[in-house]
């Protein structure tokens, strides 16, 4: 078909057909027309070959890996395309530490996976919920801290590392536990004086495995203990959360008290 001639089946229509952009009825009709139009069939085949050629991988580019080149380019101090060469170095240093922490967690045995699920009260936090959580380590009698395995001795200390990634990361975190007798143990924020009403701690966005700096020790009652991580977008007060827990009459919560928050519950046994 030479350009300029007015074909019965337009080439643009054939292109739309090839791209699967016609409706089902249009496609059926076109297929019928094509059977009686060898010239249109030829044009369709040409279009198919063009798209195949354009999609084909190029041998000239086979085996090229840009990772090394990108890293080198980021390290070039005088490169006009890179105004902050130290960033890659700094990021690399931090990455090593953070990566080690993450990989350590990924390699470690998980804490009661069925319980280790953050739950969201509202859809807006769905993404953040997926990417927010804590890992808990126990410290026993001065030994090296270990990822919590579901059992805890009365005098053990607990350490926490939070992850707060996703498109809409959270802003605040509370860590507490509810013991067998209903007693509430606060880890973060520290709740040390009667009459105080401290609020959630602020957490960083886009961070993984951020280790909180303290080991917190409480005298737990032997029996089941539920450890909670409550992520939120607004700061919450300790008494506000205690009131919510008391309203549940001893039933351990499995959902957060507020919309757009996330609650992670870890079940352990105190011995």
């Amino acid at each position: 078909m030479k350009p300029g001639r007015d074909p019965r089946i337009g080439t643009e229509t054939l292109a739309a057909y090839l791209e699967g952009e016609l409706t089902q009825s249009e496609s059926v009709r076109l297929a019928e027309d094509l059977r009686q139009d060898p010239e249109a069939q030829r044009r369709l085949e040409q279009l198919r070959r063009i798209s195949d050629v354009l999609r084909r991988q190029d041998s000239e580019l086979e085996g090229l890996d840009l990772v090394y080149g990108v890293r080198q380019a980021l390290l070039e101090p005088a490169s006009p395309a890179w105004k902050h060469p130290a960033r890659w170095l700094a990021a690399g240093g931090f990455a090593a530490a953070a990566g080690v922490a993450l990989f350590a967690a990924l390699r470690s045995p998980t804490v009661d996976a069925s319980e280790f699920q953050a739950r969201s009260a509202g859809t807006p936090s769905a993404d953040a919920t997926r990417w927010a959580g804590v890992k808990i380590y126990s410290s026993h009698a001065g030994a090296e801290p270990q990822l919590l395995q579901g059992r805890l001795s009365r005098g053990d200390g607990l350490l926490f590392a939070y992850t707060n990634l996703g498109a809409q990361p959270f802003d605040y975190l509370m860590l507490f536990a509810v013991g067998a007798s209903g007693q509430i143990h606060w880890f973060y924020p520290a709740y040390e004086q009667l009459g105080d009403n401290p609020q959630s701690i602020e957490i960083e966005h886009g961070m993984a495995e951020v280790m909180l700096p303290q080991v917190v020790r409480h005298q737990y009652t032997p029996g089941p203990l539920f450890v909670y991580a409550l992520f939120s977008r607004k700061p919450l007060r300790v008494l506000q959360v205690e009131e919510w827990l008391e309203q549940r009459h001893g039933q351990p919560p499995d959902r957060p008290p507020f919309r757009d928050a996330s609650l992670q519950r870890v079940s352990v046994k105190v011995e």
Partner: protein
Amino acid sequence: MIPMPRRPTLVGPPADTAGEGPLSDHTDDELMLLARGGIEGAFDTLIRRHQQLVLRLAFRYGRNAAWAADVAQNTFVEVYRALPRYRAHGKFKSYLYQILLNQCRRSRRSARTELRALDILMRAPTEAPAEVLAREQRREVEAALDTLSTKLREVVLLRFGADLTYKEIAELLEIPVGTVKRRMFVAIAKLRDELELT
């Protein structure tokens, strides 16, 4: 209930051990956020996931492997530099190819490109007859592509070079999906006409 005074005891963090995580399981947005959070390997994973199509599109655009490699590399460097400002909306591909297109439009061949060309030439395998034929076909199509207007050409490249959907192309070029489709069908038809003439 009466809160009891509690005073935490400060000790050091737990010891770390090295290991590997399944970074390839993460989405593009997740990898960007992990890279921003300093997770080693996250950005490398992102590069390796997309480099093939980025290179292909750049190659189709510039018709030169060395030029394409430089443009692709600069694109990833620019993406890395923009990490702190990146907003995860599930549109990483559109974001990436927008940067790539801008790089293609403004990039020019440099002395460094020539050196890289030598490098690529040295690594190129000996071509079989079928490969020679395929290369010739590609050159013909690429020559036909050069006859299209920039608007039509970029839609074709994004669709076939980068495997983007019409919706992704529309987001990237900031035009309606219908316009993308119209340009696409016109472009393919024009390409066929051009090849028919030669």
